[in-house]
């Protein structure tokens, strides 16, 4: 009798303690939809690494307001359909407070409307296509738009090489490379640089010699390449086997050590604009690069850097939010807190900027950041002075 009452008391005490604990500190569940398999896995894995690193750092320092962050990672395979499914799972089944991702702009256009309908923030860290944040007020991204970066890059390249006319090559079946092409086209028109010829290729193409031979015949001073890293590297190599010496101008897609693993020094003189550079020696970036190398044994890229910063942006917003445990209210509260965040991250000073209004519909927030212009020298990107 006595024994059992002790037991009851103890159980009650333990229970009360647990409840008290959970009222004070709860897990904050953050979803991440990333392409961990499939052709986009190289970006998705870097993104997952960036988030993992930042989450561990935040938790090691005691979390946010005493709450531990829990990252729930799901593979969306770089496909629209899977991005939709993963978003649904993270939002409705796993009850994530917010969802990061998906990796590709293509997938974001498919999945973000689900988050907006459910009033959950969809936070892209790698979606740079135009119109992503016009999808709804719950769409955020810290990936800097090509429209902000490429004009700065192009102007710097024109000045550096004394360029009079350029040729363009781009992937015409990918939202990211196509959108980069559109921006380049508008930029070149605005800056009065004539285009000698515009060539396209499709996903999976490996032989670009036909297009490049045509570009060679049009005799441009430089080649503008709205491409992903691996295609860009092969395009650069193939131009050299055709005896072409023109420098390349590119965007975010070229910002990866992979470019030089494949193209080696053939990629020298390539000019690339990006919000992040390994050569940007701010304390925050140096700390990020060192921590990333220590944890994963490899150099981070821009995708890892932007993912890393995104977690810190959300952590900063969470600091100002009083979580009630009522999921719908908390989700909206987090959304309302995000636009005011200002941090200095691996990619530099970061703030949000409201997306341009589109047809009177409420819109989300884009990144407001400075572009860093780099030039390839000796098989790596250095800052262009």
């Amino acid at each position, binding site marked *: 009798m006595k024994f059992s009452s002790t037991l009851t008391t103890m159980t009650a005490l333990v229970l009360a303690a647990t409840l008290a604990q959970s009222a004070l500190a709860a897990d904050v569940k953050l979803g991440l939809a990333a392409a961990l*398999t499939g052709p986009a896995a190289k970006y998705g894995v870097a993104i997952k690494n960036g988030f993992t690193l930042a989450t561990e750092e935040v938790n090691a320092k005691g979390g946010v307001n005493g709450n531990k962050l829990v990252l729930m990672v799901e593979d969306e395979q770089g496909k629209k359909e899977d991005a939709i499914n993963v978003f649904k799972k993270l939002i409705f089944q796993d009850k994530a407070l917010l969802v990061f991702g998906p990796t590709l702009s293509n997938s974001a256009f498919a999945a973000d409307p689900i988050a907006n309908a459910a009033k959950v923030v969809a936070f892209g860290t790698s979606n740079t296509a135009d119109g992503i944040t016009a999808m709804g007020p719950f769409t955020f991204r810290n990936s800097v738009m090509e429209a902000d970066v490429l004009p700065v890059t192009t102007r710097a390249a024109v000045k550096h090489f004394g360029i009079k006319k350029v040729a363009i090559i781009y992937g015409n079946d990918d939202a990211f490379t196509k959108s980069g092409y559109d921006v380049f086209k508008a930029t070149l028109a605005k800056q009065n640089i004539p285009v000698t010829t515009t060539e396209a290729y*499709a996903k999976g193409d*490996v032989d670009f010699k*036909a297009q490049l031979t045509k570009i060679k015949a049009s005799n441009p001073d430089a080649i503008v390449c709205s491409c992903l890293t691996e295609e860009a590297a092969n395009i650069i190599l193939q131009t050299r086997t*055709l005896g072409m010496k023109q420098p390349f101008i590119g965007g975010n897609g070229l910002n990866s050590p*992979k470019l030089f693993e*494949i193209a080696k020094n053939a990629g020298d003189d390539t000019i690339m604009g990006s919000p992040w550079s390994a050569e940007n020696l701010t304390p925050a970036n140096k700390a990020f690069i060192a921590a990333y190398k220590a944890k994963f044994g490899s150099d981070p890229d821009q995708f890892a850097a932007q993912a890393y910063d995104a977690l810190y942006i959300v952590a900063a917003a969470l600091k100002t939010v009083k979580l009630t445990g009522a999921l719908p209210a908390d989700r909206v509260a987090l959304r309302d807190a995000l636009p005011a965040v200002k941090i200095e991250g691996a990619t530099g000073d970061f703030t949000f900027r409201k997306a341009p209004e589109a047809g009177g519909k409420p819109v989300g927030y884009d990144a407001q950041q400075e572009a860093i212009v780099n030039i390839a020298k000796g098989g790596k990107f250095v800052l262009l002075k």
Partner: protein
Amino acid sequence: MLEQQLINALTLGSVYALFALGFTLVFGVLGVINLSHGAIFMLGSYVALMLVEQLALPLWLAMLVAMLASGAIGLAVDYLVLRPLRKRNAPHLAPMIATIGVAIILTNLAQGLFGAENKRFPQGIIPENSFTFGSIHITAVQIGIVVISFVLMLVLLAVMRRTQLGRALRAIAESPKAAYLLGINVEGLFYLTSFAAAALGGAAGVLVGLSFNAITPFMGQPMLHKGIAVIILGGMGDIRGAMIAGLFLGFAEVLTVAYISSDFRDAVGFGLLFLILLVKPSGMFGKVLERKA
């Protein structure tokens, strides 16, 4: 520019032809559209890459071993997937669907083993010298591709036309039942065909890996699309037709880029396919079709 484009077209066309050769051989003899051919092509280039990287084999030996290894994979696919369906007299669609499954499994396997990233042959392995004639640039690899493709094509053609084995294969293509009654080891030759076709696919994989530096688990899929176009253009099961249609597709694509627009590169290739099917549903070499291989 035209001269250079013709060289580009010849290289590209040779690769298409070589890839389509094994593909059409299997159709001719086994009557099966083996959609795992693209995945086997992909594995061929990985095998050669591993041999060169891990065991430091010379390139020619790596390529030979890669052909044998792809052949063995093709044989395994035949034994494990196609043979049970043959035994059961499964309808025509069954082996086609089954080989889609095989392709997906092999692609995922390759991704698990080698990762999703592009791999390339180490520099220094590939002869990097190139030759310049006026405005034309040709690399040693391009010459190698054309020569190796043509040698393999001619060897296969000679075997089919001039040997007892070729006669037996053509007999099977005509009617497996009649061939069996004549005392031909039909099942054995099915295996041999699957082996040889996969070995040719593996060789094409190594050549593509060498020339374009983009070995990925996903490289088989786009090539498979071209391969399907080529064997239909050339007449299903026709070896000479596949060779000519492969070259034809290469030239069509490159000249489209040169004189129309790179946006229409694939559209023109497949548009031609559509046109030829309208005019001559059995492909460019329709007559030969009746004889198949």
